[in-house]
């Protein structure tokens, strides 16, 4: 620790420079900057050298023109290109049409221009003159097309690879709601979002991260609804990443979250396009990563992890409060059990206390040990269950339930009550819709258990206080993690502890700082049409039905008058 003092900043800078130099070595700058040569043989050799004769690199040389005097070479990666479109749109015209029309004959001198302008019938084709750029394109699924004697290469976008079709998301399946989920292809995913938000202000900005993997990362937001500062911050954090690989959004998550050491997840992630669309419209930013169906959503606050997108489709009033109860049970029930049986037996009603004592009779461990053992056992089972091949999953259930539960009780190792407690926490922990949040809460049970074992109820409350303090200190892209509970915005609790009907949620969340806070016209509460003996003037309708007209709010787009009238038309 003293080393840092003795030496000023310079050596560390030097060290950084050395590290940077080593990072560059994998792809020497010198080669990437090299222009494409006029010499076809040289280009072919260069490509082959760069790929080291890798088996999926296809280099096809051929001659064409009326006298076969034009030499060209096609380079692509097998498996990344759609061979049918490649041969239909690129190869066929070249091989069969040697004459474009009367004036234009393919000659070695004009071959490149003619091929580019007349022969390649592919929608998106790029022209490059640097080896580095060409490499990037080839690796992304373009084909490279060299013509002898020209220092350019053509790269038609003939991407096409084996792709998973759009399926129902495995981790978030709903009873009611759309059934499409993201896939591993970034383009498909952006299209799924675009189909839901038809505004040109929906923006997808691309980045490439990963020196080796060159992963495409896409920052999505709706311009005009999102806080520009948030977008800038997201971009800044993504741009500052310098790593070799991003294989899943989890890699990215670790690099861009606000607080490095916290068990809580500071970004939301989902497989559902509808959820992403809802977040974007609310003024959040989504980060899509190529090769994974999981999309990150920022900023994320804790209360969101207790909201399921389905809450907004199928209105069930109790779901939210049940989840809050579940989180409380998961976190505290085992530790309360330990605290009560060890230190505060008098709090348990007498009848129950007697049967609990009877149940614990002969159990050789203190309650903490008992609870810890059972909780760890449960976590072992759960972990085994997730890694296990599906076909043996059944066995696990039997082993868990009968062998570890019933047998342990009968053998007198644990009391039946702790089995109930552990089973209950197991169930409740799955009520938390967000998997990462559920893992966090489950993890926090252990310190809570230890505290309860040492200090009883005092320990439980102390533990809760520490957790609360920690959560209050977290931020996700500038938004306090416990918002809107605290800093309290009571007006927004209608979407936290229960789910208010849509016509009540007129404003976007305050601390997302959207430049356009109003989501919809106010006062859209549906009401039965007023009973009227005979048709009167329209003025009465306007006054009686929906309370306020389009008064004073400029920012939303809706025709209030239309709605007012259609609501009343048929009585």
């Amino acid at each position, binding site marked *: 620790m003293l080393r840092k003092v003795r030496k000023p900043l310079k050596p560390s800078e030097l060290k950084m420079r050395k590290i940077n130099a080593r990072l560059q070595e994998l792809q020497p700058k010198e080669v990437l900057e090299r222009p494409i040569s006029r010499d076809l043989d040289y280009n072919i050799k260069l490509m082959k050298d760069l790929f080291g004769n890798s088996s999926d690199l296809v280099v096809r040389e051929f001659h064409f023109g009326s006298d076969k005097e034009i030499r060209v070479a096609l380079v692509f990666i097998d498996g990344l290109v759609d061979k049918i479109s490649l041969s239909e749109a690129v190869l066929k015209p070249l091989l069969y049409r040697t004459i474009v029309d009367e004036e234009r004959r393919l000659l070695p001198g004009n071959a490149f221009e003619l091929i580019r302008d007349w022969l390649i019938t592919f929608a998106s084709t790029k022209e490059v003159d640097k080896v580095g750029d060409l490499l990037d394109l080839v690796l992304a699924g373009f084909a490279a097309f060299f013509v002898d004697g020209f220092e350019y290469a053509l790269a038609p976008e003939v991407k096409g690879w084996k792709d998973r079709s759009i399926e129902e998301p495995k981790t978030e399946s709903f009873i009611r709601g759309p059934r499409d989920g993201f896939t591993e292809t970034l383009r498909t995913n952006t299209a799924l979002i675009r189909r839901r938000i038809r505004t040109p202000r929906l923006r997808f900005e691309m980045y490439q991260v990963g020196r080796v993997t060159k992963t495409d990362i896409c920052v999505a937001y709706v311009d005009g609804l999102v806080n520009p500062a948030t977008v800038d911050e997201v971009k800044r954090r993504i741009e500052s990443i310098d790593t070799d690989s991003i294989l899943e959004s989890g890699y990215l998550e670790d690099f861009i979250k606000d607080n490095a050491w916290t068990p809580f997840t500071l970004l939301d992630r989902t497989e559902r396009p509808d959820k992403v669309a809802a977040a974007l419209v609310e003024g959040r930013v989504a980060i899509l990563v190529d090769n994974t169906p999981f999309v990150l959503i920022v900023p994320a606050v804790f209360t969101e992890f207790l909201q399921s997108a389905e809450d907004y489709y199928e209105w069930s009033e109790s779901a939210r409060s049940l989840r809050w109860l579940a989180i409380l049970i998961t976190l505290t029930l085992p530790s309360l059990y330990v605290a009560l049986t060890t*230190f*505060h037996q*008098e*709090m348990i*009603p007498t009848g129950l206390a007697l049967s609990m004592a009877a149940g614990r009779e002969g159990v050789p461990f203190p309650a903490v040990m008992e609870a810890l053992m059972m909780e760890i056992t449960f976590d072992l089972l759960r972990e085994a269950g997730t890694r296990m091949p599906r076909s043996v999953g059944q066995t696990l259930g039997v082993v868990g339930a009968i062998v570890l539960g019933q047998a342990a009780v009968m053998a007198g190792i644990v009391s039946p009550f702790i089995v109930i407690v552990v089973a209950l926490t197991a169930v409740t922990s799955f009520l938390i819709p967000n998997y990462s949040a559920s893992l966090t809460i489950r993890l926090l049970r252990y310190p809570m258990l230890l505290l309860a074992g040492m*200090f*009883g*109820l*005092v320990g*439980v*409350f*102390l533990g809760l*206080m*520490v957790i*609360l*303090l*920690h959560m*209050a*200190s977290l931020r996700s892209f500038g938004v*306090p993690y*416990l918002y809107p*509970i*605290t*800093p*309290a915005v009571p007006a927004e609790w209608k979407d936290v502890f229960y789910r208010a009907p849509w016509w009540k949620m007129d404003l976007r969340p305050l601390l997302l700082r959207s430049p356009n806070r109003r989501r919809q016209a106010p006062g859209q509460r549906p009401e039965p049409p007023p009973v009227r003996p005979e048709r009167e003037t329209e003025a009465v309708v306007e006054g009686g039905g929906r309370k306020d007209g389009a008064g004073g709010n400029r920012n939303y787009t809706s025709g209030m008058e239309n709605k007012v009238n259609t609501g009343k038309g048929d009585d």
Partner: protein
Amino acid sequence: MGIEQGKISRRQALFLVSNAILATMVLYVPALLAQETGQDAWVTVILAGAGGVLYGAIVVFLGARFPDKNLVEYSIELLGPWAGRAVGMVFGLFFLYLNGVVIREFSELLVSLVMPETPLVVFDILIVSLAAYGVYLGLEVFARVNEILFPTALFVGLGFIALAIPEMEFYHLKPALVHSFPALLRGSVLLLSFYLEGTALLMFYPALRRPEEGKPISYQVGFILAIAILVDILGVIAMFGPEEAARLIFPTFELAKTVHLGGFVERIESLIVGIWITMGGLKVMVFYYVSVLAFAESWGLRDYRPLVLPTGMILAALAVLEFADTNQIRTFFRCVPAFTVTVLGGITVFLYLITLIRAKRTGGKTDKDD
């Protein structure tokens, strides 16, 4: 430019102050007041409430007068570097000492009521560690936590008293206004001395997001506290009668003991411990923060965080050192009004007067509040 960079809302400041005062008030005031003024305690509460609001007006006057400075900063500005720093040190030491008392009280409470076999030092260290964590995270963080926990604790506490109503005997409250006026006045001075702890606000007043709108805090605090303590003390007296209430050490806790629900839920008073841990822990955090910040400002430091952990050690030691036994706490509580009123009231009123004189000398309202 102060040390504290965080910002809090007015509600958060209000709850912080209310919690800081109420946490110990509910512990000791009912017994002390029952002894002093018995069933006439409500008069005391009103008198003390009036005094508290008046004092609060002085406090928020100072706060709004120097909206970007805390107490130590403007005492340095008003009194010059040496005297100003001395005031800052006295302020910090006062809260350090009082915090030791508070920690000791809570440790005693936990030991005597919940876990008699555990040594006191254990709870002492636990509470200080919790508070140190909170203070280290900063004003913003524990103000936020307080913002949800204080109303919750208040709600649960009032719920307990409401559940105890069936057991109460309201004839205990009967002969009204039998105590002499001096006795009532003495009682209200006692109560007022707790109100004075609200001076802590002046250390985080500049952290208010809109300091110019902070003035209502004074009477809002007075209102919340008056209601809470009135309900508490009337409940205690109606339950036990003034004589027995005066004999009990923690009457509020005894009140909670009588609560039972439908013959199934009984003896849930341990849950009260939860309330006190949250309220007490947050109170300790506020005092801790105030003293550390006052030290840092007095010594001209750029950050108070380096002082947090060592001060925590001192706090834990102080809590043990301050009293030989529970008896000394009881006798010391006789001293508290004189102590608090002299130090806190003295500093505040002194600064207030100096501000007024300064304003007059420079020609009334020429210097703006900016």
